[in-house]
């Protein structure tokens, strides 16, 4: 080995802009906490609905509006009424019911003199509380029988909604929808905004003038109205709604990108590329877009909470995602309707939404401070 490479390796590595930014972000405690909250929530949104014991659209008829509880459902005093309700439709008389923590013993007698049909066990199975139902018909009297069944343990940590669906699972799936919307719509806004802004800024002149007047015009429109019109126009197609939101949110992005491009255009390396005869499209692709990436990234993190808000707003009005899928806006709207008797239906979704928005806002602010080269 020659010694020259050794000394080269020992030379201190210079800190890049990104390294500094990362260091500064690390020092910002609120932002770092937000990073973890966002990661945890995204993880819960992706994995949660899969590992949850309840499908998000499963309706538990016996547990409509069940209160949040850390212990399992059915509660001790619920087992007997549930079994009675299930067997009511079987047209048999219930003589005794013995319910323990996880087993139930029922003796029944048929209302008519005919022998009991063993298929009536289905009434118990269908009530989604009992499993492994067994029925032994009395050997002497075929109108009498003893049924035994296991009582399932169902956990509704955040209770169930007004249709008897597990609220925790629904919150997880709505988190997934909200984050998906945010990703897709921000992507669309990014694509349109960056293309439009860099083109207007780089070509300049009359084209720039026309393009930016168009943006000004769109700014002066009642913006919500156009989102509503677009949603009406596209129908209730979830993907198209995301695209519509993105197609509305690109205006700020276009303005910012145009401003940055105007500055970059004067730089020597761009002029050098022009002198070498590189095409306009290639200059935008290779020189302009990479140089505005930082600004765009900051703006993007601030755009994500805005998009989530807009989607929830539309869902709140009933224009967003449709049943049985759900989103935070839908859950909050439903919770508001039932808050009089079941305030938890409002509190849990509202809390989830607030935490997510807090984390995203803190993260966006932190990134903006960290990446600001003027503020060392």
């Amino acid at each position, binding site marked *: 080995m020659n010694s020259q490479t050794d000394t080269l390796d020992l030379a201190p590595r210079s800190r890049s802009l990104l390294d500094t930014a990362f260091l500064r972000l690390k020092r910002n405690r609120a932002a770092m906490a937000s990073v973890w909250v966002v990661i945890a929530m995204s993880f819960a949104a992706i994995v949660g609905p899969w590992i949850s014991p309840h499908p998000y659209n499963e309706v538990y008829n016996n547990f409509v509006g069940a209160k949040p509880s850390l212990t399992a459902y059915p509660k001790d005093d619920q087992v007997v009424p549930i079994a009675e309700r299930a067997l009511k439709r079987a047209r048999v008389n219930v003589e005794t019911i013995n319910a323990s923590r996880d087993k139930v013993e029922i003796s029944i007698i048929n209302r008519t003199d005919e022998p009991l049909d063993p298929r009536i066990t289905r009434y118990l199975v269908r009530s989604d509380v009992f499993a492994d139902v067994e029925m032994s018909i009395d050997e002497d009297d075929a109108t009498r029988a003893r049924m035994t069944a296991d009582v399932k343990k169902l956990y509704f940590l955040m209770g169930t909604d007004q249709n008897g669906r597990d609220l925790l699972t629904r919150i997880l799936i709505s988190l997934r929808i909200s984050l998906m919307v945010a990703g897709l719509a921000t992507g669309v806004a990014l694509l349109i905004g960056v293309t439009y802004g860099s083109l207007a800024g780089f070509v300049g002149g009359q084209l720039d003038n026309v393009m930016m007047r168009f943006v000004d015009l769109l700014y*002066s*429109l009642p913006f*919500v109205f156009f989102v*509503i019109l677009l949603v*009406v126009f596209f129908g209730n197609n979830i993907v198209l709604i995301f695209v519509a939101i993105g197609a509305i949110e690109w205006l700020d992005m276009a303005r910012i990108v145009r401003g940055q491009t105007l500055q970059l255009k004067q730089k020597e390396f761009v002029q050098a590329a022009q002198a070498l005869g590189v095409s306009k499209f290639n200059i935008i692709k290779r020189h302009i877009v990479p140089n505005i990436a930082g600004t765009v990234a900051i703006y993007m993190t601030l755009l994500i909470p805005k998009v989530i808000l807009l989607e929830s*707003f539309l869902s709140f*009005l009933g*224009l967003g995602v449709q049943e049985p899928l759900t989103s935070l806006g839908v859950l*909050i709207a439903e919770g508001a309707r039932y808050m009089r008797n079941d305030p938890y239906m409002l509190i849990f979704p509202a809390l989830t939404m607030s935490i997510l*928005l807090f984390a995203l806002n803190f993260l966006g602010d932190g990134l903006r401070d960290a990446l600001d080269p003027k503020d060392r």
Partner: protein
Amino acid sequence: MLNYTLKRLLTIIPTLFVIVTITFFLMRVAPGGPFDEERPLAPAVLENIRASYGLDKPLIEQYWTYMGNLAQGDLGPSFVYRDKRVHEVLGEGLPISMTLGATALTIALIAGVLLGTIAALNQNKRADYVIVTFATFGITIPNYVLAPVLTLILALSFNLLPATGWGTPSQMVLPVLSLALPQVAIITRLMRGSMLEALKSDHVRTARAYGLPLRKVVGKHALRSAFIPVLTYLGPAAAALLTGSIVVEQIFNIPGIGRYFVSSALNRDYTMVMGTVVIVATFVMIFNLIIDLLYSVLDPRVRYE
């Protein structure tokens, strides 16, 4: 100044023209029509109804008819509220929505400016931290979360205020509060930042050096320049109040025009949609003009030729 105002007022007309045109064709291209019902009408009946509203004519002809009527201030008949004209329906709700919005904006302005100034004067002290924390909460939480939560706490748990309705002052408290609070938060943050800057500026230091009392310096000299960013924000604030009022009117069951925003678009009530767009767009543009004119009042360097 008068010239400028007139010029700006005149530019409202072509802008409105473009907005109305876009909305008109966007609405018409959308699938469905105002007379779609669950039990479809007999084709002959439908033809008759369509003909009586002029919907059977070519689209371009309908467009020019509508534009002609609009130029004379006629918004046309509503397709869904059958025996009413659009201006009647909107005329009932508009004063209510205006009262709601104006009250919320006034409260947001007063509270925001006050809180922001207090925070700036106590920079990095306890009052500042409390106000900044409050502002962060207010900015993050949207009104469709705030409104039901406030109702839950103030109306349902403690029974202090009525939960829905409109008319009495006590019924106004919750809607106005849920509409205003996010704006209070934003204005507070803006005001705090600009006031901090204004307090450091030369003319404020000079005024202090002359021995003017702090209250006078802040209230007269610093406030004037610190208010400019807040003034700039008033345009977006009006738009946010508009959006917010759709939600708030729905939650509190208030008979304003907010509900027509969504329902008329969903029902394909063409004239109603156009009517709300025209009214809202005109309102937003005039509001922006007033804000621009106010700049020259606050900042003598701004002059409109």
